[in-house]
């Protein structure tokens, strides 16, 4: 038996109808999902102490409270509520996964007791500073997309971090990642970057996304000795250069830049493992027929060009697809 206060009706003119109900659940449940129940408040979890997986996604909670007794909790999903502060989580010492995306959080705090936390999602909040993660060294996955972060800092102590997402923020400089050799994926699309730098010690990195920035020059990638996927879509790069810095990659995305010289494309021959190339919407693209044929001629080992199989015949939605198409995609997986 849980107590729930929920919004029954909200006309938008201040006329709000609420209701407090009792919600029957077995006392020995280990999972509870109350997605989209218009819950404003929920309490009496003392009656269900064994819950390990709790999802209250898409509700109307304004405050994190009443979960303190759920000490067995390993997964907590509060995505899409109206929470303003990270608090009252100290007793959840077994927590491994926490999703507080799509809320109104301004500060990362109150997580210091969650030493087992491996995955933290904070998408679409109002965070300005990366902080408050001093003790969370078990962290493997950090998602800060769509906040107001300006500086990469206070991250390098996270020695287990494998995947870091900072897309759609206000970052101007890649920094603060020294010594993170275990990092596998770094994602920074939609920021304010102009120079590729600060990546020298990321020897374990397999995938990096720098799309939708203001990058002019390909450089600063020589430390990424294990790089498989490089995403430079939507930048202002004019010249394909320093190709030897990423010679092991299998996927290169450089759509919508300012490449205008086919001679440059020949440099991609040095990339022996290149199977996936995205290069459309550059000045050197004139007609699809000419473009695809020239790429085929220069780079015969490329299997996917601009997202499409190299054999793809335009105009026929029901054409057959060979088995190797599926293999190319399997090889792209970073996870």
């Amino acid at each position, binding site marked *: 038996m849980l107590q729930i206060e929920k919004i029954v009706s909200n006309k938008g003119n201040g006329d709000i109808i609420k209701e407090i109900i009792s919600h029957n659940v077995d006392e020995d449940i280990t999972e509870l999902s109350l997605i989209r129940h218009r819950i404003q408040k929920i309490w009496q979890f003392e009656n269900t102490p064994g819950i390990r997986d709790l999802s209250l996604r898409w509700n109307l909670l304004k405050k994190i409270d009443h979960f303190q007794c759920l000490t067995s909790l390993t997964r907590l999903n509060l995505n*899409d509520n109206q929470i303003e502060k990270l608090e009252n989580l100290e007793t959840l010492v077994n927590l491994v996964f926490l999703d507080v995306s799509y809320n109104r959080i301004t500060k990362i705090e109150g997580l210091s007791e969650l030493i087992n936390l491996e995955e933290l999602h904070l998408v679409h909040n109002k965070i300005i500073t990366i902080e408050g993660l001093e003790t969370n060294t078990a962290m493997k996955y950090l998602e800060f997309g769509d906040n107001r972060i300006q500086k990469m800092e206070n991250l390098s102590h996270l020695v287990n971090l494998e995947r870091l997402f900072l897309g759609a923020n206000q970052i101007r400089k890649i920094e603060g990642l020294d010594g993170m050799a275990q990092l596998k994926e770094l994602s920074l699309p939609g920021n304010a970057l102009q120079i590729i730098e600060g990546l020298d010690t990321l020897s374990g990195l397999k995938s990096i996304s720098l799309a939708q920035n203001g990058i002019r020059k390909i450089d600063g990638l020589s430390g990424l000795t294990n790089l498989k996927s490089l995403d430079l879509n939507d930048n202002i790069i004019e010249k394909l250069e320093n190709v030897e810095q990423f010679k092991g990659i299998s996927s290169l995305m450089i759509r919508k830049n300012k490449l205008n010289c086919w001679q440059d494309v020949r440099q991609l021959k040095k990339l022996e493992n290149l199977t996936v190339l995205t290069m459309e919407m550059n000045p050197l693209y004139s007609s699809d027929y000419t473009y695809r044929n020239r790429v085929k001629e220069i780079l015969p080992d490329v299997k996917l060009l601009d*997202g499409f199989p190299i054999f793809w015949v335009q105009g026929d939605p029901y054409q057959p697809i060979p088995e190797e198409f599926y293999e190319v995609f399997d090889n792209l997986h970073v996870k």
Partner: protein
Amino acid sequence: MDLFCAAELAELCHRARELIWSEPIFLKLEAPICVMGDIHGQFDDLLAMLDMNGWPLSSQEFEALKDITVRSRETGKRPQSEPHSTQPESSNDVKPPVAAPKSVNKEVTTGYKRYLFLGDYVDRGPFSMEVVILLTALKLAYPDRIYLLRGNHESRSVNTSYGFYREVNYRYDAQLYECFQNMFNVFPFCAVINNTIMCMHGGISEHLTSFNQFSVFKRPLEIPDVGVLTDLTWADPDPTEKGYKPSARGASFVFGPPALRAFLKKLDLQMVIRGHQVVEDGYEFFDGRRLVTIFSAPNYCGQNDNTAAVFSIDKKLKISINVFRPESRDKKRGFEKERKAKK
């Protein structure tokens, strides 16, 4: 473990792209047809509304699909699509008319509904991928029963921030996101039903003076920052305006009743149906009934209390409106029982 692997979804995007690209950027459609507005990743609501209003499949087709699904589950194999298969002909699916003395003049029912969707399938709701997968799969299976217009959220610059990029990247990878975007880049921007009702995601454009203008647009393309295609995906009506004024959204314009009347007169239309804005009842009229906004994501973002709506336009262009209030679904989950017990 997701239901599909990345390669299967990529294949779906590639095939749907070719099919949609082969249709015009500006669709000419005939009634009867249903119109649905923004979905925004609310997949369970989409299913509920199709259950309520009717699916673009007949009951026989549903049974056939069920059989295929069960069989492929038993064998563990992916149902292999026939190489060089021809486009399925929907005429084969029409039930033979049953003669009856009292219904000599009754229209022959096809057993399925046709749909036009006004865009914004992704972002905000938790199941954007499911929405796109279902609608594009239906499009490939029944090309003349489903039409998908492009919304402003079917654009990299928007869905990188609002959720779709993150959803695809988290569950699969960035390359698959590219495949979805490549497909969005060929979506059509507007449709005209029986040369009378114009449908788009956003609103009208001051610069659209003739439908012949659409021939200059070459797909694939991104939604530009200014111009006709921007207005069709971003513009809003504003009852306090007369002409066109820059929008507070930061993209495109707002337009007033006089601008709308001039637009309709110039293009010889009677009505505009568009989405793009949450409206409390799921639909809202503007300037008499010259323009109607339709929104099909109920309780949008969990914070609005809005109803969702689906329009049904019959052969004679009579419009009926089905509204969907998910609150009623809560009653089936036991809350109603609780309420009665208290009395």
